């Protein structure tokens, strides 16, 4: 391996470690938002509860969209590794659409809750719900923007080493959000309905 290639590999390793550490700090944020939610579940102030508000079918559909999008992102990663530009962009497009679907469903759910007077300013419980789930949704939205940017980079620069490396980190981010969603589904929606 040439000196240049060795340095390039080292740089990517450092970037990957740095990104893992960022994800860990993000995980701490989510953990604290989960803890806050757990503490505030009963802070409904006589207002609407999870049981009254949550739609398990909607949550299930969101889950399917997000989990499938992780799979399609996996296909995009595989295409990238084998130098298949068309495949990478195509699968990224599918992932993007699934992600947009997820965000659309979530925004619709939020709007519905606000319309019936169950917005984040109604009670502590709802503040915690909107912030936890909303923070996740904002992360997904940032991920969608990042997918667009990576697609543009693949088109303009091709599947160069830096581009593939960035795609790997986007993958880490996307799968991390999946795991966070599994937590949300399990801790927020399911118990809200039991």
């Amino acid at each position, binding site marked *: 391996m040439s000196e240049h290639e060795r340095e390039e590999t*080292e740089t990517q*390793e*450092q*970037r990957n*470690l*740095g990104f893992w*550490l*960022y994800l*860990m*700090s*993000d995980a*701490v*944020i989510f953990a*604290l*938002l989960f803890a*806050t939610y757990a*503490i*505030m579940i*009963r*802070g*409904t*102030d006589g207002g609407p509860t999870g049981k009254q508000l949550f739609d398990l079918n909607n949550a299930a559909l969101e889950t399917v969209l997000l989990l499938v999008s992780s799979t399609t992102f996996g296909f995009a990663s595989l295409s990238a590794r084998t130098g298949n530009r068309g495949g990478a962009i195509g699968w990224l497009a599918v992932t993007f659409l699934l992600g947009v679907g997820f965000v659309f469903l979530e925004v619709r759910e939020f709007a519905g809750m606000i319309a019936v007077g169950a917005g*984040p*300013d*109604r*009670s*502590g*419980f*709802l*503040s*915690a719900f*909107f*912030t936890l789930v909303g923070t996740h949704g904002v992360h997904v939205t940032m991920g969608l923007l990042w997918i667009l*940017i990576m697609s543009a*980079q693949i088109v303009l*620069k091709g599947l*160069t080493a*830096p581009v593939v490396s960035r795609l790997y980190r986007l993958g880490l981010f996307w799968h991390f959000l999946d795991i966070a969603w599994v937590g949300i589904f399990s801790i927020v929606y399911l118990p809200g309905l039991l």
Partner: protein
Amino acid sequence: MFGKLTIEALPLYSAIAAGGAAVTVGGALLVALVLTWLKAWKYLWTDWLTSVDHKRIGIMYIVLALIMLLRGFIDALMMRAQQAMALNAGGYLPPEHFDQIFSSHGTIMIFFMAMPFMTGLINLIMPLQVGTRDVAFPWLNAVSLWLTAAGAALVMVSLVIGKFSTAGWTGYPPYSGIEHNPGVGVDYWIWAVLISGIGSTMSGINFMVTILKRRAPGMTLMRMTPFTWTALCASVLMVFTFPAITVACGLLALDRVAGMHFFTNAHGGNMMNYANLFWIWGHPEVYILVLPAFGIFSEVVATFSRKRLFGYESLAYATAAIAFLSATVWLHHFFTMGASANVNAVFGIATMIIAVPTGVKVFNWLLTMYRGRIDFHPSMMWSIGFIVTFVIGGMTGVLLAIPPADFLVHNTTFLVAHFHNMIIPGVLFGYLAGYMYWFPKAFGFELNRGWGAASFWCWLIGFYLAFMPLYLVGLKGMPRRMETYNDPTWQPYLMVAALGAVVVLCGIVSMVVQLYVSIRDRKLAADRTGDPFDGGALEWSTSSPPPPYNFAVLPTVGDREPFREAKKNGTAYRRPASYTPIRIPSNTPAAVILGGFAFVLGFAVIWHIWWLVVVSAIAMFITVIARSSDDHAEFTLSAGEVKRIEDERFRQLGGRA
């Protein structure tokens, strides 16, 4: 169009407030004038503001810290003066001004003096000590700096436009909520902390990756310098605990801006959660600050005792233990919030346990001095003053760790004395020791020893005069944060404390004089070898200041003190057979621009200028995208260039090479 911002935001309601604003604006204008007179704007921009070099970034952090030390200390002088006079509603400050001052004093000293000072020293020295060319993410490093500066700028602007928070540096709701504090003060605090906190998290990531992945070949973890060890542990804490204050301030901001109920009295809010979130960050934060200071003491005491550091392995394990334990004690900041005896007792015991590794460190430093040959360089004086004074604070900490004892003195000036008794000798003396120790490395000439010693004695005596009375008046039942009081027996103590503040002022003036005298006499005290104190670690093997690439040939390490080994073996100043070209990250305006927009974003949120919030957010986004899409933001220094720089270095070394 301008949200809540109107002409009423100007502090024309009181002479003192107007004075503060005038000094701030005047100071900024003065700096601009001097730069213009020296024709230094271009130099400032190309060589400093757009730099991504860890050494430059480190120096800028320290400059920020020293300026904010002055600002925070003026707050301290004003508080001590007020309390010395304020028996029975005496005192010179208008109502509620004192409350802003104690809030900004704490906020500035922790977030904008101590954190930047530490980050600056680690930036300046750690990459040299691990034998690498720069930190892992040089551009991110610059972004961290400018985000911190943006936060500091918000605090400074609050002197001129609007008011600062009166909720203390801790910002407890519901007092800090929108219902009880609808003005902009708390918002200034929130956004200054949030923005600089993001910078600190990124620095933590940067330092961790640098230390874990960029050490010179042969440098195992147990061969790192003590300072690097403590920088690593502090960085781990930064990455894992700064998210907690981001959440605490973020949720408070949501309560204030979006009418949510995280911490409100009614509607299902839970104010106790804020205390938990804040201190889950807050306690590790003080260890983030003190561990690198401990690392500095380890290096300084060894160098100026002319001995190897005693108990290196013990110190490394103790550092890791302290870092881990620091995340288990946060509840001791609110023993009086009504938790059960079991909960209070568990956290009290955890707090006591931290005293054990800390005590081990103190003994190791003492044993390093033992049978050494001590040179009383100012840095050594700071270290000795630290040991004597810090253990007193540690003792009062153990007292406070016992919940029923804490019930008697929590939130009194006894507590204030305790934590200043830890932070001033622990953190500040450590950073000042590091500043005076590594100044020659950064600038190529030594600081004047006499004025350094004067500064030390004034700080030490001033500290005791200012804070020992506070322990005593706290035992008399005086709560903290009191603008006036009605017990005349308190006043003598507070007057002595005010005298102490004046003595510390002499210490600060001595530091300013030291700087002036040292710059004036720099040719006489020039550091031509890069090794003015016969150091053992790698930073002393470079020139002072080091070249942009730090090491022409990256070192290989076989010992805990690689440079001392090399000096013993005669391999220290060898010229390599040939030089290779070196790639160096290019300067870029993207980081300072990002910081500028972060400032605007914070200001816009505070004043509810929503269109400007959107515009600055988009601008930040575009800056980041543009920068990240740049794959080749570096230039190459040719082998000939490197040789030229190295030849000059060897010429300076003269006899040594």
